[in-house]
């Protein structure tokens, strides 16, 4: 009898196809390893239940002790999929190290499904379709760092159905006794900062979802002062597959330097959006719908970078390529702005939102972000003063690197890139004109800014 717990750690996926529909498809094993999607079950829009999940993947391949998974994660080259692309093995090692030194409290693992970025939907989609993959990853990460507590945190408002599905998934796992560590389901308030890791830990500890000063890092002293591992939910899903199929399998997709695949939220100019999983290194033109796509592309969401579509089409989805354009893959958001919209007005509206979402805790951020937003409002209107662009540039410089979190840095990058990408539009505005032909806003912006302290809870 094989219980789920004892399944082999390194099943090669071509012996046990990831996707049932892949059975019988001609081609050798290496091709199979490159088959995507890896994370999202194909051809369904209902959550995969535990039975189907285990039939497809087997149970979580526990290693039997802490630390044993770290080598595989390192060899796989897995990086965080929450935006910063930090090497996962280094965080695992940091938590293990802190746990060794602290001795008082066992580590905690937090699965970050806050998905606070309004334009992103990939984490909610993953949690909805493949909850058990994320929950497997959470268990395996908990085992890897010797944690005795795990928390899965989801975005409160968007999480309605997802929350119900996750509760069901957790109950299924309870019944099957598949988990080694109890999992608590928590909600993050619908604030842009809520997914930032110190804010998340602050909230989980009973405080507001506001960032705290680093050091100490949460890996050192996080929730309840315990060494805390915070990983994006997609990162954990990849980890769950690396634990099963190994680093070589993981590396069959992606580039040498940036292996694996990532989930992307693609928002096309016609307003249609979809979630897709692609290898790192995928040509952006494949994602944007061809080389001759027009307009301007926002790469990386509201902390990301505007790039003229023509230029973007020549880039690939990996840090190496995007760095040259001042961008990074971030959390995999790609938005094509339709030619009917005014990029400056859209940017100004988002900048206002980002300024309102600043926690206002740090002087430069508190002073700089509203000024930047105000200046962009002016640039988005007719006949802005010339010096306003200089003001934005100076303020963007002044806020960068000077907050307790990276919110001002990301906001500055976003608005600076707009000044470059929409320079032509700015010229029109200076002459009192605007190229926009639609009066409808394109970029999604939540309507309700935080008013009271309750809104951060």
């Amino acid at each position, binding site marked *: 009898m094989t219980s789920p717990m004892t399944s082999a750690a390194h099943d090669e996926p071509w012996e046990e196809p990831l996707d049932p529909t892949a059975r019988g498809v001609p081609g050798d094993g290496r091709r199979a390893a490159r088959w995507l999607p890896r994370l999202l079950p194909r051809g369904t829009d209902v959550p995969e239940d535990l039975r189907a999940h285990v039939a497809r993947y087997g149970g979580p391949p526990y290693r039997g002790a802490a630390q044993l998974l770290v080598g595989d994660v390192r060899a796989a080259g897995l990086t965080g999929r929450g935006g910063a692309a930090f090497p996962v093995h280094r965080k695992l090692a940091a938590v293990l190290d802190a746990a060794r030194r602290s001795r008082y409290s066992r580590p905690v693992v937090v699965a970050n499904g806050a998905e606070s970025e309004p334009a992103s939907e990939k984490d909610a989609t993953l949690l909805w379709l493949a909850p058990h993959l994320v929950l497997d990853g959470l268990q395996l990460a908990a085992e890897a760092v010797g944690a005795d507590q795990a928390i899965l945190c989801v975005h409160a408002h968007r999480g309605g159905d997802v929350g119900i599905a996750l509760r069901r998934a957790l109950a299924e796992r309870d019944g099957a006794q598949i988990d080694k560590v109890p999992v608590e389901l928590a909600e993050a308030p619908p604030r842009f900062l809520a997914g930032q890791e110190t804010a998340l830990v602050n909230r989980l500890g009973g405080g507001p979802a506001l960032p705290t000063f680093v050091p100490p890092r949460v890996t050192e002293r996080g929730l309840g002062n315990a060494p805390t591992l915070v990983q994006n939910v997609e990162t954990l899903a990849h980890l769950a597959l690396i634990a099963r199929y190994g680093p070589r399998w993981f590396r069959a997709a992606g580039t040498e330097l940036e292996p694996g695949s990532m989930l992307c939220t693609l928002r096309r100019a016609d307003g249609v959006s979809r979630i897709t999983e692609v290898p790192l290194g995928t040509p952006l033109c494949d994602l944007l719908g061809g080389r001759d796509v027009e307009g301007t592309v926002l790469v990386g969401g509201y902390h990301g970078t505007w790039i003229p579509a023509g230029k973007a089409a020549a880039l690939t989805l990996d840090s190496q390529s995007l760095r040259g354009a001042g961008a990074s893959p971030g959390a995999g958001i790609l938005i094509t702005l339709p030619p009917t919209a005014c990029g400056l007005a859209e940017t100004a509206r988002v900048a206002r939102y980002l300024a309102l979402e600043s926690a206002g*805790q740090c002087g430069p951020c508190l002073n700089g972000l509203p000024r930047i937003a105000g200046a962009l409002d002016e640039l988005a209107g007719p006949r802005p003063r010339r010096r306003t662009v200089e003001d934005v540039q100076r303020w963007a410089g002044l806020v960068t690197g000077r907050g307790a979190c990276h919110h001002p840095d990301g906001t500055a990058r976003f608005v600076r890139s707009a000044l470059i990408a929409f320079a032509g539009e700015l010229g029109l505005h200076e002459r009192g004109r605007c190229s926009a032909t639609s009066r409808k806003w394109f970029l999604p912006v939540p309507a309700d800014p935080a008013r009271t302290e309750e809104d951060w809870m």
Partner: protein
Amino acid sequence: MSEPTANRLLVNPIECSGHGACAELLPEMITTDEWGYPMVDGRPVPPALERDARRAVSACPVLALRLVPAEVAPEARTGRA
């Protein structure tokens, strides 16, 4: 152990209330921005300034300024990056 020269200045921007007292005591390494908040040179404090740096640290009324070993200071928060 780390040498004194390996120390860097670090501002906790959440605590800092922009008094600027630090900048007066260590103008070589701390200036203030147009809103009165300190912009700190993120490079290692040279030995000749170590004493003044310590005085600036103790002058901060809200304990927002710290002198920490270089490896503790996150690179991004140098204020002049």
